[in-house]
């Protein structure tokens, strides 16, 4: 089942691919696309792939018919030049797949370069040139290997040369194959995907105008250029003006489109239809993205089907009612973790056995699960907690919190605390804005020592005291620094510039309260008594 496959990929990939497998029956997630095109390119275009008809094209992409027709219209008939196009629309609206399937229908040669996978100008340039070279070979002309280029000027030169060669080769082949019907025209199309990412590249001030004016610079009428972007055309306006490509807008899917998409490839359409009529509307208020919805619906549908003994059963009204009543109480809680992404570990467990899987799902679903998803050693947990405490508490209150003799007994200190509580509204606002503070290493280590010594006192009930001391000594050696850097690498802590006055590195704690509470609970640490409450 395609959906299963999707979920087994890593989380980042998964959303993408599962949406793709839903929105089309074709194996078209990004990765498979790449190997797919490469294969196609390598095996030559003439006998690589049967083209699809217009009907299959529009029916395989529900809700995208007007857009596809518009693209077809703007690309135009065989051998007609075109102005550059810009397809834009939010993420997960089927831009890339629509274009690629359209070209499959048209069966014309194209070059696809995604700015996400080709993440810098050099790689982008070389990927375009390499693909052009393959086209040239396909069209029946051998050529000496791909030339590498670094600079934009070299790229434009090489691009112009190879484009002209490809176009000539295509033209020659068309002459040869004149009688046969596989006329693919002598136009070549360049498709640039994820163009919005260009803006964050190093030399974005030159590379964006360069790519957007490519057709103007090259002046080759046989070249069609299509840009795909998730940000609207106004994101590319430049101070010196720009020739805008012709925009084609991909709106987000409407309720009906989504229903069409989710109804594809269902083994029991009736059952799924009644399921969708229950869940689609409330979820639609939260998000319209197919990838996220498909992740959310998968477990929910399992739940929906739970009372059914036989999934092929024909549903009557009473049954629908029962199923709805069964699902209703869960709906609200599911809505609140629409975006919950199961971790990798839970997938592995899932494969191990159905029984365990169900228990795991249940345990994760419980509002606050006590389990951490990963293993951490005891001292690292303490270190993490002390970092959390250091970030949340104002440094001035450290003494009152940790100094068992001084702070709390000192009336003056107490008054200070009182006055600072008076300002708590201001403080709270400020902390809301600024987020957790940064702290120097010394403060972190001091708090660490304080809370571990308290912990030792607790542990003394169970262990010999000298053992505990040994233990403590062990903790406070260079190991702590090593663990600190491990935490930094794992992105639980981060270094945040050095303080201009003290000159030492300051750290910042990136974990949120929920996580900190989990960690504290796993080692029975009374975290709340150490946090300054506003």
């Amino acid at each position, binding site marked *: 089942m395609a959906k299963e496959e999707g979920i087994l990929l890593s989380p980042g990939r998964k959303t993408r691919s599962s949406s793709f497998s839903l929105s089309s029956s074709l194996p078209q997630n990004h990765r498979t696309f790449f190997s797919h095109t490469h294969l196609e390119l390598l095996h030559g275009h003439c006998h690589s792939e049967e083209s699809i008809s217009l009907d299959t094209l529009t029916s395989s992409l529900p809700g995208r018919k007007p857009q596809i027709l518009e693209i077809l219209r703007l690309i135009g008939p065989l051998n007609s030049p075109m102005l550059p196009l810009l397809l834009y629309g939010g993420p997960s609206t089927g831009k890339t797949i629509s274009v690629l399937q359209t070209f499959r229908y048209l069966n014309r040669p194209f070059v696809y370069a995604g700015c996400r996978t080709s993440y810098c100008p050099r790689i982008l340039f070389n990927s375009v040139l390499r693909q052009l070279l393959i086209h040239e070979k396909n069209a029946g002309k051998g050529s000496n290997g791909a030339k590498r280029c670094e600079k934009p000027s070299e790229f434009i030169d090489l691009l112009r040369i190879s484009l002209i060669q490809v176009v000539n080769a295509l033209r020659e082949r068309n002459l040869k194959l004149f009688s046969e019907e596989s006329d693919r025209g002598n136009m070549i199309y360049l498709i640039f995907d994820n163009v919005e990412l260009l803006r964050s590249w190093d030399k974005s001030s030159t590379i964006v105008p360069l790519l957007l004016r490519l057709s103007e610079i090259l002046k080759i009428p046989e070249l069609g250029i299509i840009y795909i972007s998730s940000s609207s*055309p106004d994101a590319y306006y430049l101070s010196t003006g720009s020739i805008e490509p012709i925009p084609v807008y991909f709106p987000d899917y409407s309720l009906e489109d989504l229903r069409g998409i989710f109804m594809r490839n269902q083994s029991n359409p009736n059952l799924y239809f009644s399921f969708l009529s229950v869940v689609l509307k409330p979820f639609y208020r939260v998000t319209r993205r197919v990838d996220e919805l498909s992740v959310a619906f998968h477990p929910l549908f399992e739940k929906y089907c739970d009372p059914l003994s036989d999934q092929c059963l024909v549903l009557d009204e009473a049954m629908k009612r029962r199923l709805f009543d069964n699902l209703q109480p869960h709906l609200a809680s599911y809505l609140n973790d629409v975006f919950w992404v199961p971790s990798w570990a839970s997938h592995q467990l899932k494969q191990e056995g159905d029984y365990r899987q169900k228990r795991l799902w249940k345990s994760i679903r419980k509002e606050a699960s006590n389990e951490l998803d990963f293993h951490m050693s005891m001292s690292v947990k303490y270190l993490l907690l002390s970092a959390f405490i250091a970030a949340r508490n104002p440094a001035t209150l450290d003494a009152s919190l940790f100094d068992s003799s001084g702070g709390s007994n000192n009336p003056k200190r107490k008054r200070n605390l009182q006055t600072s509580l008076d300002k708590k509204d201001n403080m709270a606002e400020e902390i809301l804005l*600024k987020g957790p503070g940064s702290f120097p290493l010394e403060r972190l280590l001091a708090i660490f020592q304080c809370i571990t010594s308290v912990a030792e006192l607790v542990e003394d009930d169970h262990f010999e005291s000298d053992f505990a001391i040994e233990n403590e000594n062990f903790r406070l050696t260079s190991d702590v620094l090593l663990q600190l850097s491990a935490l930094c690498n794992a992105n639980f802590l*981060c270094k945040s510039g050095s303080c201009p006055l003290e000159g030492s590195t300051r750290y910042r704690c990136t974990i949120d309260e929920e996580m900190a509470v989990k960690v504290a609970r796993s080692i029975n640490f009374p975290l709340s008594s150490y946090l300054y409450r506003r």
Partner: protein
Amino acid sequence: MASEKTLVLLRQRLCDPSFVYSAFKSSPNGNYSKLKFLISNTITEACNNSVLLLGPRGCGKGAAAAAGTGGLELEGGGREAGPETEGWGAFPLFAVQMSPVPVCFPFVVDLVLEDLKSELPEIISVARLNGLLHSDDNCAVKEIARQLCLENKLLFSKMASFDDNSQFMIDMLRECGLAHKMIIFVLEEFDLFTQGKQRLLYSLLDAMQTLTSHSVVIGISCRMDADQLLEKRVRSRFSHKKLLFTPLTTDDMQRLLEHLLYLPTDSSLPSDYLKEFNSNINNILTDNKFKEILDLLSAADNSISNIQRFLYQAISSMHFQTELLTMDDLKSAFSYHQRQPMLDKLQDASILELYILVCMNRLESREQDSYTFNSVMKEYKAIQDSYKTSDNYSKSVCQRAFEHLIERELISFANNRLRNLSVEYRPVRLLLSSQELYQSLKSNASCPAILQRLLNYETYR
């Protein structure tokens, strides 16, 4: 069949800038004639010259140069300077001229150069540079050397250094001057060449001060202040001739449309179809509704490229149905043109995302100068507490919706510092006005009434 041929023909016309801009070739006051006169004059007088073509993008600057080099014999003024006359001896063109004239822009260069080249193939060699590609001096000199080698059938060495190349360039200028040949340098995106030390501009313009060299430097830029960007030593060597390209007048527009849309009577198409098509175009061009559309279109942007794009969209709708171009095609093309991306994006936002936008708008109207996701969340919770709507979601869900808004570029982080801080704590701001938000909430059928009230209450109290 005939309609498909027509479609291809019209598309070819629209996608070929030199065809589009050739509509203005014949006008005597056009920049085309002026540039051509300038170059041919320089050729006859055997001097050096330099000129800047300035104007907004999409006005046809580049097309002029190509034609100027090709069409000398078409013009009365260019005639005596033509190659067939004995104008040979004197071809240096380095003029610095400052005369604002209405003409059309970079494609003019292409037209002028093409014209001149067809007339004087032996005399002119052209080196074209683009500021986007060759703004680096080293790279630019290398490119000049490469193009000159190519034109004069010399061997180009990739390994040559900057000094070698610039020496070669100066030698070439002298040799060409002695052989009564002229080199035309076309510098597109001229303003980008002025970044850095301007070594290229200086060495080009300095070489033109000698008597032996014959060359023209044509700079093309969209910045009106391009000559002010020059260093003093460069500016003093520049001729200060400027050709200004102004947007189209109504007459020009009419001429352009006729030029683009009427089918040629001598084509291979069936004659009755041809007649039908042309009379249909005639009907459209005289239609008042079409004139209204055209007025609205040119009110926003009356560059040639805008008209070109508009016609392209209209013509492409002939692809599926019609034999002829209809008024509806033009209207729908116009509606595509009038799209407002921001409102489209707002229409796409889900209800929860709209809630967050409204919260942010309330914060902004309270003149809170800086706020983060947490403060937005506080506002959201306050609203949910007081109105008890059904759209009360947990923080993590709201945060994802918030991230969607960032992806959609409806909101953005206020600064790029604090990059390592998590999303909740980074200050954000709205990228849209409350007017836009109000408008889209009103037109959104599925939007809950409470949201509109919340927005109105804050904004229009």
